[in-house]
């Protein structure tokens, strides 16, 4: 198991390196002139040249890429272009914390609900209950989160006034208050992901319930409860873990719409603003942060799967 983790970690680092390279190239592909931008429209040509030299923008690509890698390792991305004087890292840190709060809260709501829903649907396959769960899931996950976000905001936040409609959380808010502010956007995420994760859990559980080893477990004289707990779940939840792992990365960087709707200062909004500014150091650092989170989540999911399934450990060994 330990060797598996090491191998898997090495693979992740390679993936991350490739991702960083892609991000680096993309931010260089768009025609733009950051130095001119910093100098302002009336800045002298000398000033622009000076900036270009200072920022190293005329160095060979490979040198620039090396510098970026160094920045990643030392977690120092320099100063922001659009907000001169601000360290990029200091801009990212609070946003990351905000995104983490929202995502974590949404997952705490979504996962138990959808996993239990999926297992119940599988156990009651083809009954009314099963069809109800599957159809609710299908319907809710077909609405994008920012659309359901707007609806929730309007109905519960504005019309009924039960919960805050925007997430301007006061600085001294207690945890409960904070969660009250976060509940509406989190619910929008629950809507999208409940159906998705419940469906995957349902499919995995049906396969495991039909498997021969489940029959063996019943024949030993185990009760249905023990069969499900000791034999079915370990096998049936593997796809659920894998999918959750890949989706967390998306949730960190991809909730732009939802963050706009609720005016929530998360990573998605930061990246969007950095891209429109454009603010290259901030944009690069934001996207790389999401890439690192994505890598860590898939890594965590794979390690969990390897723990659940000894064959997954073998597969990596054979393919590498």
């Amino acid at each position, binding site marked *: 198991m330990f060797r598996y983790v090491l191998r898997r970690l090495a693979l992740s680092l390679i993936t991350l390196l490739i991702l960083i390279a892609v991000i680096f190239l993309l931010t260089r592909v768009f025609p733009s002139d950051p130095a001119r931008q910093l100098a302002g429209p009336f800045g002298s040509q000398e000033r622009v040249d000076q900036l270009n030299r200072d920022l190293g923008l005329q160095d060979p690509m490979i040198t620039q890429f090396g510098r970026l890698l160094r920045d990643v390792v030392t977690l120092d991305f320099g100063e922001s272009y659009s907000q001169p004087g601000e360290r990029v890292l200091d801009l990212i840190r609070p946003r990351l914390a905000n995104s983490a709060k929202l995502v974590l809260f949404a997952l705490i709501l979504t996962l138990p609900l959808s996993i239990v829903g999926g297992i119940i649907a599988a156990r009651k396959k083809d009954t009314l209950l099963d069809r109800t769960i599957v159809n609710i899931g299908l319907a809710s996950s077909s609405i994008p989160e920012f659309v359901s976000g707007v609806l929730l905001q309007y109905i519960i936040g504005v019309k009924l006034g039960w919960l805050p409609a925007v997430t301007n959380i006061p600085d001294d808010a207690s945890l409960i208050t904070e969660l009250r502010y976060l509940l509406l956007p989190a619910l929008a995420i629950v809507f999208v992901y409940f159906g998705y994760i419940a469906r995957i859990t349902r499919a995995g559980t049906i396969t495991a319930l039909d*498997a*021969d*080893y489940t*029959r*063996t*477990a*019943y*024949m*030993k*004289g*185990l*009760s249905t409860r023990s069969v499900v707990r*000791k*034999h079915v779940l*370990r*096998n049936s939840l593997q796809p659920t873990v894998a999918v959750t792992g890949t989706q967390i990365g998306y949730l960190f960087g991809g909730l732009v719409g939802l963050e706009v709707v609720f005016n929530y200062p998360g990573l998605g909004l930061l990246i969007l603003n950095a891209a429109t500014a454009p603010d290259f150091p901030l944009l690069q650092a934001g996207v790389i942060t999401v890439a690192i989170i994505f890598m860590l989540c898939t890594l965590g999911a794979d390690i969990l799967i390897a723990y*659940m*399934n*000894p*064959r997954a450990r*073998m597969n990596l060994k054979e393919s590498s």
Partner: protein
Amino acid sequence: MTVTEPAGIADRGDPATAALAVQNLELAYEVRGVPREVLRDVTFQIRPGEAFGLVGESGCGKSTTAYAALRYLPDNAVVQGGAVLANGVDILKMSNSQLREFRSTQASMVYQDPVQAMNPALKIGRQVAECYQILGQSKSEAMASAGDALRRVKIADPVRVLDRYPHQLSGGMLQRVVIAMALTGDPKLLVLDEPTTGLDATVEAEVLDLVRELRSETNAAILLIAHNLGVIRSMCDRVGVMYAGRIVEEGNAQVVFDNPEHPYTKGLLNAIPRQGVRKTDRALFTIPGNLPLIGTPLPTCVYVDRCPLADDVCRTQVPPVVPVGEGHWSRCHHIDRLAQITEPDAQITEYDIGTDNVIQLNGVSKTFRQRGHDVPALVSVDLGFHEGETLGLVGESGSGKSTLAKTLLGIHSPDSGGNITLRGREMKSKATDRIAESTRAISMVFQNPDSALNRMWTVRRILKRTLTKLTDVQGAEADRRVEELAEAMRLSPRHLDMRPRQLSGGLKQRVAIARAFAGSPDVVVCDEPTSALDVSVQAAILNLLANLQNDERTSYLFITHDIGVVRYLADRIAVMYLGRIMEIGSTDVMFSEVNHPYTEALLSAVPSVDGEAENRIPLTGEIPSPANPPSGCVFHTRCHRVIEGLCEVTEPEMQEISPGHRIKCHLTIEQLSVPVEIKESATLATLAD
């Protein structure tokens, strides 16, 4: 329907004291809301300590009966009547907790495919120990009991096996583990559903030996289901023959197999290549038609559509149970006319085998590279195929049979040094480099026809595509050839417009054979083409292959582990072990003269439906890894005739012991003729590494 209490069953004793008494069981599966009958008035009894076999074609209801015996039925199963008594208690009426208690202490089940039967995520130890924890033992007690349980099923190193995951063990070892779990708490009833199907013949023999031994030790009653009638004969006291959900004949296993008293039993037995029958003697008996679909109302004899003796009485009245001997009965109106079912006529045509080699392998080796190690899967194989000849290839899994076939086909290219010639001309080693002529010359039929047939296409399109690709025949001419081909395969024109999934296993295999013959090949490689089929379907396919060969003068490389089949079809037989040919000779001499010790062990492993006396020679342990073959004679680690000091040092040469009969062994004919003694330690199962 009136239920007659069959007289033959009534004298079997009080059902309340039977280990299992299935009484007038009527069971249906609900399909789209409609209950479809699968078990019709099934009644039989197994006395304590008795072994009862259940035989019949796939789909006739054997497994349903087995699962009913432990009340493990799918959600759509409906019991429409009858009872299943275990020691007098009706398990169909038990509460859930009684049922759990029954399963954990009174009865257990072992079924096909041990790999699937174990939870892939948990170590063996945890899964075996769980059985004892259910009985109330603590974790550590249970783990100790698990070790004992593995020792009981003759696993040599239980502690190491307990610490493994299922995927790290072989099928034979896993089946022992499954049996060990089934024996927890000394059940009074052991249900075995195809426990050895899919295992190698040698592993099958070991597992059966184990079951036999455990049975005498525990006195458990056994319900054994197997499609191999030889297995049933060698294991069971009594047998029930099932057809379309009804038991049509029941009696003492030996008596039933020697003197069947029902047309269906007789048909099944005649379809098996047995008693040394060869293709040159006669065609195999086949049972035309198919099992009726489930739920078909059958207020008649169930077998009426396929029975050669059927008449109006059979079509209108359910036949009564007719006692035909001591504890032996048959459900047939016309037992007196059974003699009218005759074996197929003796063959008139002689098989005409050429003398020149169509294809010749000269010193062909194949070495795979795996994680930096050489894995020699074929070592210097010399083989020739005469025109119109069938060469049978036997050996355990992993002995290199499939690698040989793939090398012949050009899927693998042989190591440099060896070559393959087609009519004297050397062939390119890779399929992609071969000229059209040699691509066409060799084709293949697989065990699983699905792998060769495009599921989206109709049979017509599949055949036409192959035909136009391999030959010059195009357009309307090709359409005509496709129809001729189908006719030669006894496929009706209707089948041409169907897709593979609409066809039964036997029909699909016919399409695969048609495809293999489309280019008029010189050699057809058949890799276990009938091992997934029922005996009656197998017989029809073997007849077809024999006829095609006679008409087209095609050569076959026929890979199988069924000794009866290879004896029927093959003209010569080659035996492989660890990538080497250990023995080769004509079929006649292989079964009359002395054999290589490996062949000797293989042959002794076969349970015969003819019930000849057998003295099984166990093959100790598992086949060694080809990556690390034993020194000297590669078979010395498992050989029962090994000569210490010689065999592990020097590799024997091929020696010709009679014209055309060659073996790779140091021993002389005289030494090989001495009977062998078997040591007790030779029956233990050991880990491969």
